[in-house]
C-alpha cells in the first residue's frame, strides 16, 4: 500500500497529456468551423479537452487516498512484444512459417514452462494448424515460405 493512489495519478495524468495533445492538434491542424457547419477539427477538439478534463477528475482525488502497488508482469510483456514484433517484421518477407516459429518460440519464453524442445514442437504444430485453417480452410493466399533475396 502507498499513501497515495499512484495508479490513478499515473492513469489520469496520461489521459490529460493525451487529451491536451489531441485537442491542441485538432485546433491547430484542422478547420474547427462553426456550430451550424462543423469543420473536421471541432469534434476531436471537444473530445480531446473532455478527455483532459476527465483525466484531471481522475488524478486529483487520487492524491488524497491510499492506493495499491502497481504490478507489471515484465517478463510476459517483454517476450510477447518481441514475439509479435518479430512476426510483424518477418511475415511479409519470409512467409508465414518462419514468422509463426519466431512468434511461438519468443512467446513460450513468457512463462518458460515448455522448454526449448517443447517450444519448437509447438511452433511446428501451430504452423501446420495455421496453414490448414488459413490456406486450405479459408483459401487465403499466404505463402508458407518466401525468400526475399
Amino acid at each position, binding site marked *: 500500500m502507498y499513501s497515495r493512489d499512484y495508479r490513478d495519478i499515473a*492513469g489520469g495524468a496520461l489521459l490529460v497529456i493525451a487529451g491536451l495533445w489531441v485537442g491542441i492538434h485538432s485546433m491547430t491542424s484542422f478547420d474547427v468551423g462553426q456550430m451550424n457547419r462543423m469543420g473536421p477539427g471541432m469534434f476531436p477538439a471537444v473530445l480531446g479537452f473532455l478527455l483532459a478534463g476527465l483525466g484531471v477528475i481522475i488524478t486529483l482525488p487520487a492524491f488524497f*487516498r491510499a492506493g495499491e502497488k502497481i504490478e507489471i508482469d515484465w517478463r510476459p510483456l517483454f517476450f510477447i512484444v518481441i514475439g509479435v514484433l518479430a512476426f510483424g517484421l518477418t511475415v511479409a518477407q519470409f512467409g508465414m512459417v518462419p514468422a509463426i516459429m519466431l512468434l511461438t518460440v519468443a512467446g513460450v519464453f513468457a512463462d518458460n514452462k515448455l522448454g526449448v524442445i517443447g517450444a519448437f514442437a509447438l511452433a511446428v504444430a501451430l504452423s501446420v494448424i495455421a496453414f490448414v485453417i488459413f490456406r486450405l480452410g479459408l483459401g487465403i493466399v499466404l505463402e508458407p515460405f518466401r525468400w526475399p533475396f
Partner: protein
Amino acid sequence: MSFLDNLILGLNVAFSWDNLFYCFLGVTMGMFVGVLPGIGGLVAIALLLPMTFYLDPVAAIVMLAGVFYGSTYGGSIASILLNVPGAPNTAVTCLDGYPMTQQGRAGVALLMTTVASFFGGSVGILAMMLFSPLIASVALQFGAAEYFALMLLGLVAASSISQGSAVKGIAMVVLGIIFGVVGTDVNTGIARFTFGIPELYDGIVIVAIAMGLFGIAEVIYSVTRVKPGQLRAKDITMRSMIPTRDDVRRSWGPMIRGSTVGSFFGVLPGVGGSIAAFMGYAVEKRVSSSPERFGKGAIEGIMGPESSNNAADQTSFIPTLTLGIPGNVTMALMLGALMIHGITPGPNFVVERPDMFWGLIMSFWIGNLILVVFNIPLIGLWIRVLAVPYHMLYPAILMFVCMGVYAVNNSAFDVLMVLMFGVLGYAMRVLDFSPAPLILGFVLGPLMEENLRRALLISRGDFMVFLERPISAVLVVSTVLLVAWMVWSDFRRGAKLGSAEAK
C-alpha cells in the same frame, strides 16, 4: 409481409447448408472456448472476426452469434466442475454448481444447466421475435438528434453500469471515440490523425483494436495468473445425470423467473449476461422459502442464473439489430462485423434485410438445439478439454491473433497496430481501466459525429434541437440524470474510502 412469411423466409435461410454448417461451427467453437478457463466468447469472437470477412454476411453473423451464446453454455461446465468460471457470465453458477459437484451431483448439475440454458435461450429468442419489429417501427421516426441522444445514453450507461469507477469508464469511451476519428473525414475528405501513413486513411481496423485489447493484453496479463484447475469429477455417466423428481419440481420456477429477468436485462445497454445472471441468482434467493440452502448446492441457484444469462444473450441482439446501437462489447464487435460487410443495422435493417434478420433468429433456434443435442453426449469430451494447460494455449492464441490480423489486408502494418493496442490494453489493465467502453466508443464514435453534425446543420447550430424533440429530450434528460447519479455514487464511495483510511 406477414409474420408467418417472415418465419418461413428465416427458416429457408437458416436451413441452407452453408448457414447450418457455420452455425454448427460457431456453437461448437463457442462451447469449446467457453469450457476453457482463460478465454471466453469475447476473445473468440475477436479472433474469428477477420476470418468472417471471407464469408457471406449471413453466414458470418450466424457463426459469430453462435460463438457468443455457445460460450455461455460451455462456461457453465467449467463453473460447475472446476469452480472456475469458463466465461464471465457463468461466474454465479460456481456458487451452487461446484457444491453440487462436491456432493457427487455434477452430472445432474450439468444436465439441468443445459436445460435451463435452452429454456432461457428460447424465451430470449421469443422476446426478440415479438419486440424487434415493434422497436424498429418506432425507431423509423428517429432523426439525427434522436440517434445522437440515444447513442450518448447508451455509451454513458454502458460505461457506468459496468464495474469500476464511472469516470474512468467514460474516459475510456472518449478515448475510443477519438480512435474512431482517425482516418479520412467523410464530410470534407480531410485526413485526421493519420500522420501521413497511407494505411490509416481508412481508419484503424476494428480487428486490430479488438484483438490488441482482448487478445494480446489478456494473454500478457494471464500468463502468470491462470492456474490449472483440479478436476473432481473424472467420469460422469449418463446415469448420473438423471435428476430426481424433487430437482425437476424445484427447477420450473427459477427457469421461468430467470428467463424473464434475463430477457429484460439483456436489452438494457451496458448490462449483459453477467449482471443478468447475478440478478437471476438474487431473485431466486429472495423468493426462496429456504434461502439458507443457497451456496450449498441448491439447484435453484444454478437454474435461475443459467436461464437468465442465456435469455440476456439473445435479447441483447434487439437494440443492436433494430437501433444499430450495441449494448455491450460483444454486440459492438458484431456490429463491426456487419459494417465491414457494408450492412448497417438499424430500423431499416429489419424491413430491408428480412432474410438476414429472420434467418439469424431461426439460426438461434437451430444453434440452441445443436448445443443441447451435443452438449449432453459430449460432456466427457468437454471435461477432457478442461485439461489443456494454459501454457500451450496462449501461444496458439498469439498465433491466431497475428495470422488473423495479417490475413485481413495482407498488411504487416496491421500487426504492428495490434501490438500497439496490446501494449495499450495491458497498460490499461495495470492502471485499472476497462477496455470494453473503449471498443463501444470506437464503434459508435463515427456514427455519433455524423449524426451530431447533421442535427446541428438542420437546426442551424442550435443545441436546443436536442431538447425540443420529445424523444430526444427524454433521452438527454435520462443521460444527465445518470451522470448525476454516477458522480454522486463515485463521490460517496470516495468519501467512504477516505473515512476508512482516517481510522
